[in-house]
C-alpha cells in the first residue's frame, strides 16, 4: 500500500479564487492510500517545496500528488523536489486544477467539486505508480558517415575536429561526390575543384577519419549510441596501401573504350582507372566488367607495369564490422533519367545534354578540356537553348517526373548561361523558364546580372519539342509574354533535369528504420525544429538526401548534423525516458503487430525458452523492447491483442484507475 501525500496549491488566488483549497485537501485526505494532505499558497516556491520535502520525510511518503498548475509548468520542479527528499521522481503526479479547472470555471462550488475529482484521479493513479529509473546505455564514441560527397566530407571533418573518430563509406572509388564533377559554383563562380579538393585532402590526412571507398553498408543493427554496422569493401583488385597513384597502369591498359562515368559517358577510360586527378584515395581500381584479365585471364599488363606491385587479381570483397554511436546519412542525389522526356530528343541527339553533362563539357578537366563544343561533332555551338524544370514540378505522372521543385536548377542555369556568354560572346543563349526562383544570398543579383550584363535571353515559356534536323536542333517553344510560338535553330540544348535521392537511400533507410517521404527523401524528426535529425534516434541527415539543396545549404546542414553528432558522442551514457513500453513475455504471442506500428524500430523479437505445463521447455518468439530507442508513444500497447505490451508511467491499470475515479 502506498503512503501518499496530497499538496494543494492556492497559486495565490489563481486557484484559491475559484476552488476551495481547504475543502479539496480535506476531501482528498480520505482517499485510499492518502496519509497526509495539506494546502499552501505557492507550492512551487522554496517554502512550498520545503513543505513537501518535510512531509515526505515525516510521513515516510511513497508517492505524492500535487494539485496545482499544469504539469507542463511545474511537473519537473516537483519531481526534483521529490528526488531531493529521496523519493523516486516518477512517484509524483500532478492534478491540473488551474489551467483545466480554476481558470475555466467561475463558480466556486463546481470548481471545488471538479478539483476534488481531478485530485482523486491523480491519487488513484499514484496508488498504482511504481518507481521508474531511466535506462542507461553506453555510447560508442565513433561516428559513421554514409556518403562521401561535400555533405559527408563536411560532416566528417567537423566531427573529427571535435576529436571523435569518423568513418566515411563511399560507393565510388573516390570521395568528392557530385561537387567534384562541377565546374564553377554559384553565385561567386569559384571553381568547384579549387574549394573542394583541399577539403578532400584534409579528409585523407585527418587522423580521426578513415575512408572506406568503393564500399557500401550492408547491415545495421543496434540503436542510438550502439550501432553495429557491417561494411562491404568491394574488391578493387589493387592493394590500396601499396598503390602510389602514379597512374602508369591507367595509361598502359589496353582496354580503351570503357565509358567514363565521371564524365557521364562523354569520353572513355581504361579498365583500370583513377576517376580524376585529385581523387581521394588516389588509388587505381580495376573495373571487373571490362578487365580481360579478370574476365578470361588474358592480359595482365597493369600488373607488369606496376613498379609497386599493387595489383592483386585475386582480391576478394572484404566485410568489416564496426561499432558506432551515431550514423549520418549523406547519400546525396542524382539527376533523373531523361528517358521519359524524349520530346526533347535526349535519346535522339548527342547535342541534347543534361546540365550535369554541361558542367563536364565546360570543365577544364572534362572530355573537351573545357572547350564548349557540340558533343556530336565537336563544333562550336552558336545557339544554345537551356530548358528549365525538366521533370521538376511535374505532377502529371509519377513515373515521369517529380512533383517538387529541384531548387538548384534556376541558379546553375544562370551560371551556365552567364559563363557561356562571358567566354563565348558570339553565342546566343536562351533560357526557357516557368519561374525563376532565386531565394538566397546574392542569388537574385546573380540571375539579374546574367540577364542584364551578359545578355542571356530569358524567355517565359516552355519548349514543347526539339527536332534534330540537318545537324541542327529545331526548338519549338512558347514565348508567353510575346504570345508567340518560337522556332529556334539551336546547336546545343541543355536540359535542367530534376534531381532525385540516390537509389541507395531507400535500402539504407530500411536498415536504419529511418522514415522517408514518398519521394524517398529522408524525413526529418521535426520539419522546423529538428531538421538535421531523423526520427530514429542516433541517425542524422546531411545534404540532399533530406531534400534538394545547393552547396552552401548542404555545408550548413552538414555542420549542423556534425554538431548534433558531437553532442551525442560527448556523452558517456545516454539516459532514456523511463516511460517506455515493456512486454510481458509470458503473455506475448510474438505476432509482430507491435513491431509494425513502432515508429522507432524499438521492438525486436527473440526466441525464448518457456517451461510448459508438462515440464518440457519450448521455444517461443516474443517481443523485446529496446528501452534506449523506445520513445513511449504507446502505439504498440493498443496494437497488442493479448495486452502483453504495456507502457510504464501510463500503464493500462493506471489509466483505468483514472477513468474510474473520474466517472465515479
Amino acid at each position: 500500500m502506498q503512503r501518499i501525500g496530497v499538496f494543494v496549491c492556492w497559486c495565490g488566488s489563481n486557484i484559491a479564487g475559484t476552488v476551495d483549497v481547504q475543502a479539496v485537501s480535506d476531501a482528498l485526505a480520505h482517499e485510499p492510500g492518502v496519509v497526509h494532505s495539506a494546502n499552501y499558497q505557492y507550492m512551487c516556491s522554496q517554502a512550498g517545496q520545503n513543505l513537501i520535502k518535510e512531509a515526505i520525510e515525516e510521513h515516510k511518503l511513497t508517492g505524492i500528488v500535487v494539485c496545482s498548475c499544469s504539469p507542463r509548468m511545474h511537473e519537473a520542479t516537483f519531481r526534483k523536489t521529490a528526488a531531493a527528499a529521496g523519493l523516486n521522481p516518477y512517484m509524483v503526479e500532478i492534478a491540473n486544477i488551474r489551467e483545466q479547472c480554476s481558470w475555466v470555471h467561475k463558480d466556486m462550488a463546481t470548481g471545488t467539486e471538479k478539483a476534488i475529482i481531478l485530485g482523486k484521479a491523480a491519487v488513484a493513479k499514484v496508488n498504482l505508480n511504481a518507481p521508474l529509473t531511466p535506462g542507461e546505455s553506453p555510447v560508442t564514441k565513433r561516428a559513421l558517415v554514409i556518403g562521401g560527397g561535400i555533405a559527408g566530407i563536411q560532416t566528417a571533418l567537423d566531427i573529427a575536429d571535435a576529436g571523435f573518430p569518423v568513418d566515411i563509406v563511399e560507393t565510388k572509388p573516390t570521395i568528392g561526390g557530385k561537387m567534384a564533377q562541377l565546374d564553377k559554383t554559384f553565385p561567386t563562380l569559384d571553381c568547384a575543384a579549387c574549394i573542394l579538393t583541399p577539403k578532400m585532402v584534409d579528409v585523407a590526412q585527418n587522423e580521426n577519419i578513415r575512408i572506406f571507398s568503393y564500399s557500401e553498408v550492408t547491415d545495421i543493427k543496434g540503436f542510438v549510441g550502439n550501432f553495429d554496422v557491417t561494411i562491404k569493401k568491394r574488391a578493387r583488385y589493387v592493394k590500396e596501401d601499396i598503390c602510389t597513384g602514379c597512374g602508369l597502369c591507367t595509361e598502359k591498359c589496353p582496354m580503351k573504350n570503357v565509358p567514363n562515368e565521371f564524365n557521364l559517358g562523354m569520353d572513355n577510360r581504361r579498365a583500370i582507372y583513377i576517376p580524376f586527378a585529385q581523387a581521394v584515395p588516389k588509388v587505381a581500381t580495376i573495373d571487373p566488367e571490362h578487365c580481360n584479365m579478370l574476365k578470361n585471364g588474358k592480359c595482365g599488363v597493369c600488373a607488369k607495369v606496376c613498379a609497386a606491385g599493387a595489383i592483386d587479381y585475386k582480391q576478394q570483397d572484404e566485410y568489416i564490422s564496426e561499432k558506432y554511436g551515431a550514423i549520418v546519412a549523406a547519400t546525396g542525389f542524382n539527376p533523373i533519367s531523361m528517358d521519359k522526356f524524349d520530346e526533347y530528343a535526349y535519346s535522339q541527339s548527342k547535342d541534347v545534354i543534361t546540365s550535369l553533362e554541361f558542367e563536364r563539357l565546360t570543365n577544364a578537366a572534362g572530355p573537351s578540356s573545357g572547350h564548349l563544343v557540340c558533343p556530336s561533332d565537336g563544333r562550336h555551338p552558336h545557339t544554345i537553348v537551356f530548358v528549365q524544370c525538366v521533370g521538376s514540378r511535374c505532377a502529371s505522372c509519377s513515373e515521369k517526373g517529380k512533383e517538387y521543385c529541384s531548387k538548384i536548377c534556376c541558379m546553375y542555369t544562370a551560371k551556365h548561361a552567364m559563363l557561356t556568354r562571358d567566354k563565348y560572346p558570339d553565342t546566343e543563349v536562351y533560357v526557357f523558364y516557368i519561374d525563376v526562383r532565386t531565394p538566397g544570398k546574392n542569388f537574385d543579383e546573380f540571375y539579374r546580372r546574367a540577364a542584364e550584363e551578359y545578355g542571356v535571353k530569358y524567355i517565359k515559356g516552355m519548349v514543347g519539342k526539339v527536332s534534330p534536323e540537318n545537324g541542327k536542333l529545331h526548338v519549338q517553344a512558347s514565348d508567353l509574354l510575346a504570345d508567340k510560338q518560337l522556332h529556334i535553330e539551336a546547336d546545343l540544348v541543355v536540359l535542367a533535369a530534376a534531381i532525385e535521392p540516390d537509389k541507395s537511400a531507400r535500402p539504407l533507410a530500411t536498415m536504419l528504420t529511418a522514415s522517408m517521404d514518398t519521394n524517398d527523401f529522408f524525413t526529418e524528426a521535426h520539419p522546423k525544429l529538428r531538421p538535421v535529425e531523423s526520427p530514429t534516434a542516433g541517425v542524422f541527415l546531411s545534404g540532399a538526401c533530406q531534400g534538394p539543396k545547393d552547396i552552401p545549404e548542404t555545408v550548413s546542414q552538414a555542420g549542423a548534423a556534425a554538431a548534433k553528432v558531437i553532442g551525442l558522442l560527448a556523452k558517456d551514457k545516454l539516459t532514456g525516458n523511463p516511460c517506455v513500453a515493456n512486454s510481458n513475455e509470458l503473455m506475448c504471442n510474438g505476432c509482430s503487430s507491435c513491431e509494425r506500428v513502432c515508429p522507432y524500430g524499438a521492438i525486436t523479437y527473440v526466441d525464448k525458452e518457456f517451461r510448459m505445463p508438462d515440464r518440457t521447455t519450448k521455444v517461443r518468439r516474443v517481443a523485446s523492447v529496446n528501452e534506449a530507442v523506445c520513445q513511449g508513444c504507446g502505439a504498440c500497447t493498443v496494437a497488442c491483442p493479448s495486452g502483453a505490451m504495456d507502457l510504464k508511467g501510463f500503464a493500462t491499470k493506471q489509466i483505468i484507475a483514472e477513468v474510474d475515479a473520474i466517472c465515479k
Partner: protein
Amino acid sequence: MKKELEAIQSEVIRRSGVNPKKCMRCGKCSGTCPAYDQMEYHPHQFVYMVESGDIEPLLKSDSLYQCLTCFACVDRCPRGVEPAKLVEAVRLQVVRRQGNNHLKTDSIPALIDEDMPQQALVSALRKYSK
C-alpha cells in the same frame, strides 16, 4: 450575363473533367501545339481564361475550330491539365446551341476532293457540328 458565364465556366469544367487550377503557367502546351499559328487564343490561354471565367472571347473565337485534337498538349503537360479537353468543352458550348453548327453539311461538297477519306468528313462533322 456574369451569372451565365459562371454557369458556362462550371459546365465547361464539369464536362471536360479538367481542373484548370492545376495549371502552373509553364506554356508547354503552347510550345508544343501544331496549330498554334492558326489560333487567336492559344492552349495556355484557353486554360487561363476558363480558370478566370473570361470565357466570352473564347466562345466567339475561331480558335475553337483550329485544334487538331492531336493530344500533344495533353501528353506533354507536366501538371496533367489536358488543355485539348477544355478546348473541346468550350467548342461544344457553342455548337450544341441551335443553329450554331460550324460546319454545315451543305457546304461540304465544295470542301472535298475525290481522294479525301470518309474519316476526315465524319471527324470534322463530329468536331464542328451537332
